[in-house]
């Protein structure tokens, strides 16, 4: 099973940024802009299912009875969904950062704020997944799931799109 998943993920990683260049013609700046849209799209796909799955699991455990049984059965899906979340977020982060670095001449405060917030969430996610220290894990689990940071990220993305279109 594992040997089948790895080539699929690898293929996905290579193909994910390509739609950005599909119908762009000669204008390189449009392609760079599309890279930003790829970052946003990938971010939505990576985070929505993961957040919904976790919320549903918590609700099911609290509700008990039949829902608790379903939540226990759904535990086996947690790891694949987590890996999907990590991989797509990494793709989105690097696509977003490449987009930012290539348009660094137009840097404004909103873009800088967005880059800082993305980096904080990315670092806390990496530390949460790969550190073995218990204290660091607890700290990053709390930080990574902070509603304030998630809200800030969404607000900055919306602002960035609105200001970028002008």
């Amino acid at each position: 099973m594992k040997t089948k998943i790895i080539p699929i993920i690898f293929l996905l990683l290579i193909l994910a940024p390509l739609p950005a260049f599909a119908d762009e013609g000669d204008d390189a700046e449009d392609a760079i802009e599309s890279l930003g849209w790829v970052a946003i799209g990938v971010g939505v796909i990576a985070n929505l299912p993961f957040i919904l799955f976790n919320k549903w699991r918590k609700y099911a455990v609290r509700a008990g009875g039949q829902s608790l049984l379903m939540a226990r059965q759904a535990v086996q899906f947690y790891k694949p969904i987590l890996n999907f979340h990590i991989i797509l977020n990494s793709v989105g982060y690097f696509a977003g950062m490449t987009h930012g670095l290539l348009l660094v001449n137009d840097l404004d405060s909103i873009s800088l704020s967005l880059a800082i917030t993305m980096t904080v969430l990315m670092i806390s996610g990496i530390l949460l997944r790969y550190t073995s220290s218990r204290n660091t894990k607890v700290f990053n689990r709390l930080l990574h799931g902070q509603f304030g940071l998630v809200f800030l990220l969404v607000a900055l993305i919306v602002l960035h799109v609105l200001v970028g279109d002008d």
Partner: protein
Amino acid sequence: MKALTLGLFLLLTLSVVTIPTIFADEDEDEWDDDDEREYEQRGSGDMEREQEREREREHEDDDDDEGLALGGGIPDAILYGTIAVIIGSVAYTGYKIYKVKKPKLSASR
């Protein structure tokens, strides 16, 4: 460790695939046949002067675009707000851990 190595390898592959594609059709600065003919016709001196003038024009355009850059009122407030929210989140997380651990420590004494 194996998963980390695999992850880093995948990210490196992605970067290698993504970055060169962006520059693939950027040929504005390339030296083509028309430029060479023009260079031969007009001589290198004229060409250099024209390039210098173009550089100056670009520099002036950059100066005009500074309205959106760092230093404005509301955009600056957004940046400071972001930094404040991040510091606040880190501090709040630390405080939450401290609050949970403190009763345990005092109970063990």
